[in-house]
């Protein structure tokens, strides 16, 4: 069962308050997306930890309904 880009964006925003999300639909098949997530909450976390935060926000959909989601994270430095 495919997912809509808007659903992915909403879940990530709900799971990581204050983050900025851009979803690219890579193939238009509802299966292959890229998520660009920027958040101050990533500060001090390793890449793996940042990506795990995104996966937690997706509540288990990653690797199930969501087969191919390329994740790119950047830190928002609100210093």
């Amino acid at each position, binding site marked *: 069962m495919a997912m809509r880009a808007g659903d992915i964006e909403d879940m990530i925003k709900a799971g990581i308050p204050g983050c900025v999300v851009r979803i690219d639909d890579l193939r238009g098949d509802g299966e292959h997306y890229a998520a660009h997530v920027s958040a101050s909450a990533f500060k001090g976390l390793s890449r793996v930890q940042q990506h795990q935060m995104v996966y937690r926000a997706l509540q288990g959909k990653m*690797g199930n309904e969501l087969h*191919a989601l390329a*994740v790119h994270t950047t830190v928002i430095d609100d210093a």
Partner: protein
Amino acid sequence: MSNDVFEQIKQDISQNDIVLYMKGTASFPQCGFSATVVQILSQIGAPFKDINVLENADIRQGIKDFTNWPTIPQLYIKGEFVGGCDIVRDMFNSGELQDMLAEKGITSPRAA
């Protein structure tokens, strides 16, 4: 997840400098993401042990529980989980992966 799966994983990642849990094998990857990481490691010239999770359902789920990481492939260097396809590709593009391998004495340092 049973203890012996975790023990098997711990043994594999401690006995091999680089371990890639992937779908398929290094010579015959069966998933685009796994193939990308194989290509990167081959390009760097880093020898690695490939573990085909499609041949072992326990390992396929166990590795995800072990790292709390929901997807395959998963790359380990000197027993440490480095990341999946996205992170490995980003690290390769920035040169961070090559430097990490050189620092850990697995490959020779990059030409300046």
